[in-house]
């Protein structure tokens, strides 16, 4: 068994229609699938010339990450997304299939680390930044990365996990994004939380909601335990009393 310890100093989350603690509290008591929506979070804190190219995925990441980073210099960032910029990828592939020239903007922003690149430019932030795509337990692998940065002496680490609703064409393969969402965690050294990894003799039943949102429910509620299984890995999040 291995474990890491940390504090979750602050968090932010966004999904269409859910942009306040109250809204998340209500959702968390009675989770429902959100209706399809083109709504994107407000990022008017960015100059117009800088935000014009941001996809909804990028806007979600910025909207949860920016307030957590406020006033903090040298804040490393761990960005996690399993599927990434699927709408951009789909548009590029559609252009290719139609033998159309590719949009340089779409192409340059379709790579997985494009968002952390924009983050670095817009904030003038040169700390360590990582972009992860780690299948079904990306949040935990991101936590591991963050814990390593904390252990190395970072006073705080920003973790952002976000998923965009993939285009319809991918629906046969992508079944873990019921609606677009983003969660940001400001992590600091401490022992409020313990995350442990065990191997499972049998798999836990598949959770109904994305794991980042299950964790949010734990953060908002009285529960002290939150478990997540992927393949033969069982991750246990424990809030210490």
């Amino acid at each position, binding site marked *: 068994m291995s474990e890491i310890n940390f504090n979750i100093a602050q968090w932010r989350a966004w999904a269409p229609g859910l942009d306040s603690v109250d809204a998340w509290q209500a959702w968390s008591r009675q989770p429902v699938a959100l209706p399809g929506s083109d709504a994107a979070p407000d990022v008017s804190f960015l100059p117009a*010339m800088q935000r014009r190219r941001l996809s909804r995925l990028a806007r979600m990441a910025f909207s949860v990450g920016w307030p957590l980073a406020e006033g903090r210099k040298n804040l490393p960032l761990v960005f996690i997304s399993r599927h990434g910029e699927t709408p951009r990828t789909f548009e590029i592939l559609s252009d290719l299939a139609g033998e159309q020239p590719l*949009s340089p903007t779409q192409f*340059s922003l379709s790579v997985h680390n494009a968002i952390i690149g924009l983050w670095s430019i817009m904030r003038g932030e040169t700390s360590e930044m990582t972009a992860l795509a780690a299948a079904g337990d990306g949040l935990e692998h991101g936590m591991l990365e963050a814990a390593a940065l904390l252990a190395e002496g970072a006073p705080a680490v920003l973790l952002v996990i976000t998923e965009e609703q993939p285009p319809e064409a991918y629906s046969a393969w992508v079944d873990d994004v019921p609606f677009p969402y983003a969660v940001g965690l400001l992590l600091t050294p401490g022992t409020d939380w313990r995350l442990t990894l065990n191997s499972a003799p049998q798999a836990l039943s598949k959770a109904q909601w994305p794991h980042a949102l299950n964790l949010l429910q734990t953060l908002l509620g009285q529960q002290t335990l939150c478990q997540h299984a992927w393949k033969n890995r069982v991750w246990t999040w424990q809030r210490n009393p």
Partner: protein
Amino acid sequence: MSDLHREIKLLIIDALGLEDISADDIGDNQTLFGEGLGLDSVDALELGLAIQKKYGIKIDADAKDTRNHFTNVASLAAFVTAKQAA
């Protein structure tokens, strides 16, 4: 403002996602890149693509006068007119 000038301004706004700008905000002789409107190198590529698509003309990215054609709206309009006449 000629029709072509206006058309190119709208193309710039649309292709480059300039949310808060209208055609009237872009001067015919205003510098597009760096200073002036403040467009960057990705915008240059994107605008080149949009011009080629819209006017069915070919732009040689390596030609040394290409940079001059992209100076401002007036030079772009002159370039499009010349290419279409050729």
